[in-house]
């Protein structure tokens, strides 16, 4: 019995220990997420709007950065339809890009510090704090002369881009 125990202790002590390394790396990055898909409501015959009061849905995107001062975020509201029925009159576009929520207290000044280009349709935010920021882009399209939009499907594009500084 004693010999058996000694033999067992030898076997157990000789059992190899397998060490598995888990490695990873953290690097600066910007991720753009589609949080809420936008949808147009049709409060009257000549207007399409993302206003929730008119049964629309305001599109919301989220930008996540892991390093401060590494990226600019550019977000625009649409100024034309990417697809629509044939339109014989002009469409007047209005809209706004704004900060909906921030994940860090240091982001509260993002909107005040932002700049616009493209006739005000594109707003640029300097992502000076690591973390998440939620941006919304509202838009309203009014058909020329208050004429009724032809029946069909209308689509417009919101562009969100992260550009390394």
């Amino acid at each position, binding site marked *: 019995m004693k010999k058996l125990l000694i033999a067992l202790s030898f076997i157990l002590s000789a059992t190899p220990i397998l060490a598995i390394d888990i490695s990873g790396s953290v*690097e*600066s*990055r*910007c*991720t*753009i*997420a*589609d*949080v809420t*898909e*936008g*949808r*147009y409501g*049709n409060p009257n015959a000549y207007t*399409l709007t*993302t206003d929730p009061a008119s049964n629309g849905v305001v*599109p919301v*995107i*989220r930008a*996540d950065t892991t*390093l401060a001062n*590494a*990226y600019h975020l550019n977000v625009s509201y*649409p100024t034309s339809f*990417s*697809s629509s029925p044939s339109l014989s009159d002009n469409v007047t576009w209005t809209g706004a890009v704004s900060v909906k929520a921030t994940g860090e207290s240091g982001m509260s000044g993002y909107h005040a510090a932002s700049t616009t280009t493209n006739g005000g349709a594109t707003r640029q935010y300097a992502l000076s704090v690591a973390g998440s920021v939620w941006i919304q*882009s509202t*838009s309203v399209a009014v058909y020329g002369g208050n004429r009724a939009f032809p029946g069909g*499907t*209308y*689509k*417009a*594009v*919101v*562009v*969100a*881009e*992260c*550009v*390394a*500084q």
Partner: protein
Amino acid sequence: MRCSIGICLLLLNFAVHSHEQTPTYPTWKTSGIDGIKKTNIRVWNKRPDIEYYEIGVFEKDLETPIPFVTAYKVIPLAYLKEVKFDIYIRESNIEEARYVCSLSKLRSSNESQTLLVTRVCSKFK
């Protein structure tokens, strides 16, 4: 309660659809071919509505294209997949090349809505 909030946040996080590109600041490396440099880019697709990304190399205005070569300029990239690819450029174009960008390509659908185009640009410093 705290656990429920944590689970909700986790679920919300999984529901988000996103586009990511790394590295933020790529560098040009030797390619093994005289006069040609290369860099490696990784794109990650977490948008189920997107199946293709278009790659471009641009000057500092983010609009003027720079000629480059890669396996595909429009890359098929399935949901929750990543792709790593090399971009080759002439040494004579390196000074002008400032950004490499990936742009999501949209598919059509039958609903009046706003669509989201995402573009992520890395910068050569």
